């Protein structure tokens, strides 16, 4: 398992990159924000992405997907991260698609996956119940196929056709269930976030459940496994943002002149840039290795996921902070785009566990 991309994966990355270059620059995100778009993403772009097969990359061919694997999805997510593309890729494909693929039985897969692969169904994954990610904190209950509880930070919750909801049954066992968004008793409140994307707080009051995902060895493991896959996917997205913010900063250091010289000729800035370069080299390695760990169903998945999310979170914070500082006053303006990376860095940091959460998890894995 060499840590390089296959030709097909490289090709996929290039074609995603070309699509986003023409249709989804940061200006597109700015437009969604300034127009207070009710969806928070472009339907036509999502249609084009789906037509390219991006929504079905990780879905088996039997259910309308391309069975391309997570290394491939990771390349697309990384490319999204470069221009901060807003789309249902994370909510629907990375989180929910993975959950159904891993935990659904044959009938469930047949029912839900083709809609995901075609881009027609939007799924939201409702996991957390507080301001901090904590899978152990689950007070949403299921009784007689009805669920009740409050979920927070639900990505794309305001536009979902279906919810996948983490609940506990009467015995306290965790489950993932599928809920149709049209069912009665669902109260969705859209929250506009700093990164100009949307989360939702979702309240379920005796809502009927369509399906329980129960084709996995243990449902607790199912949830952890889905979360780990998604953490790695987010790390791939972060890698794109980090590289883009860094290369914009380096370009600015070469271009901006002060005291008659380019500011990139100042050694103090050079050393900080060189150190960041090194951290980014590390980021690249952990992202590709952890993506491969998904496709290879490695036992190391939890460790790899936490390494990736912890390291990328730390580095995105550093690189986005340095970006603003090195751009100086210009970096503080809304007109300049570097600030968008700072904003995204913080929101994605607090999605599915921040650096601290994962460092703690790594220590616990090794019992220290």
């Amino acid at each position, binding site marked *: 398992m060499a840590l390089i991309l296959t030709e097909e994966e490289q090709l996929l990355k290039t074609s995603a990159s070309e699509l986003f270059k023409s249709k989804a620059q940061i200006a597109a995100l700015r437009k969604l924000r300034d127009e207070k778009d009710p969806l928070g993403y472009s339907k036509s772009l999502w249609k084009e992405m789906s037509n390219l097969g991006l929504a079905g990359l990780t879905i088996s061919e039997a259910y309308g997907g391309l069975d391309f694997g997570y290394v491939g999805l990771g390349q697309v997510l990384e490319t999204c991260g470069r221009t901060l593309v807003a789309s249902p890729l994370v909510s629907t494909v990375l989180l929910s698609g993975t959950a159904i693929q891993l935990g659904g039985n044959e009938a469930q897969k047949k029912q839900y996956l083709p809609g995901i692969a075609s881009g027609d169904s939007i799924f939201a994954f409702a996991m957390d119940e507080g301001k901090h990610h904590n899978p152990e904190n689950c007070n949403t209950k299921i009784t007689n196929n009805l669920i009740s509880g409050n979920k927070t930070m639900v990505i794309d919750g305001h536009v979902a056709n279906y919810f996948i909801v983490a609940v506990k049954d009467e015995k306290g066992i965790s489950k993932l269930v599928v809920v149709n968004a049209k069912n009665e008793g669902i109260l969705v409140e859209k929250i506009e976030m700093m990164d100009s994307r949307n989360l939702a707080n979702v309240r379920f009051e005796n809502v009927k459940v369509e399906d329980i995902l129960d084709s996995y060895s243990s449902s607790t493991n199912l949830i952890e496994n889905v979360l780990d896959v998604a953490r790695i996917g987010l790390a791939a997205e972060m890698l794109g943002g980090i590289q883009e913010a860094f290369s914009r900063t380096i370009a600015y250091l070469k271009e901006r002149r002060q005291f008659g010289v380019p500011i990139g000729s100042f050694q103090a800035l050079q050393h900080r840039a060189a150190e960041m370069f090194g951290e980014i080299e590390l980021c690249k390695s952990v992202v590709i290795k952890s993506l491969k760990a998904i496709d290879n169903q490695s036992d190391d998945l939890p460790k790899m996921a936490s390494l990736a999310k912890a390291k990328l979170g730390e580095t995105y914070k550093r690189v986005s902070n340095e970006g*603003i500082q090195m751009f100086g006053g210009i970096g503080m303006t809304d007109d300049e785009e570097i600030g968008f990376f700072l904003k995204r860095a913080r929101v994605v940091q607090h999605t599915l566990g921040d650096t601290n959460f994962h460092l703690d998890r790594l220590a616990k894995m090794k019992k220290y």
Partner: protein
Amino acid sequence: MEATADKKDLKKFRKETREWLDANCPESMRQPITGPEDVYWGGRNGEFKTPDFKIWFEKMHAKKWIAPHWEKQYGGGGLDRMEYKILTEEMSRLGCRKPLFSFGLSMLGPALLKFATEEQKIKYLNDIVDAKIRWGQGYSEPGAGSDLANVQTKAEDKGDHYLVNGQKVWTSYGEKADMIFCLVRTDVEVPKHHGISFLLIDMATDGATTRPIKLISGKSPFCETFYDNVKVPKENLIGTEGQGWDIAKYLLTHERQMIGGIGETHVPTPVSDIAKKYLEIKGDVMTDAVLRAEIAKFEMDEAIFDMTIERVIDEAKAGNNSGALSSFFKFYGTELNKRRYEIMVACQGIDGLAWEGEQYNHGAIAKQFLRTKGNSIEGGTSEIQLNIISKRILGLPTR
């Protein structure tokens, strides 16, 4: 014996001051301010947000305590150093707000006192104290950030006036300023530091316009200002032609101390108290051990930074002038503030990153957090401060 007499007088002054403040400061003027809209700025279009603002300003104005330490002919109260200190302490003890927020008081005033003619002082200082003019600062230009001396805005000598052409950026509340104190280039032949002058420009003059700058926080506390053939009377020059750089440096030292937190009376909530509100605590210990360590380090540095301000003030009183330290205070104070907000956002998790909505206080934390990123840029970047420390204090060689 004289010292004892003085001490008695000061004791009396303190008592009378406290009683006067207590009797005259409205209750609502003893509450912490909530933001830049919650203060009285004065100026031609100055408005009092509530009647209490007006009462408080007028009482203090009548008492001559708008600029308590300026001499009386300039509208000041004529208090000496010790009296001024006592007044400040007593205001802070009762939580009294400043009756007037004004860059005229904090920035322009000190420059006028040191560099202006007597006539200029009497005119402009009194106007500041009377809140007649709201002032803005015009130093930075688009091409010159840290390289402040790279002033391109030109002021041509046209006999009785200067003709000004150019552009300034980063003027705080520039769209509300009646007048702006500016660095302009009056001589392009001499080395860049020597051809700069300090000019007062009335923004009501033909050709002077402003445009707000939207920040990453979504707010627009700064403006760009544009000067297109603006005629400025010769008497608006402060100091002599070419002295602008000296005046600017003198003012920057003041500004740095302000941004670095020196002289701030506002005591922020300990971050550990904020953390306790938002994070899980088991048996008096935060379960996020990494963040806990970060908070402990932050509170250590914050507490010791405060001690350092105290020490340096004490040393200054004892005659040990540490003026060069202002760069250190600017650097450390702003970096600390950035750390503070990183921790606050980390404590509040995803809630701290909401941008709108009543229950998230309309994204106040997220927006303040973003605003702090500018602290280490404005008023001389952290890098510039480190350069100054290494050269002026440590005496390290330039290349």
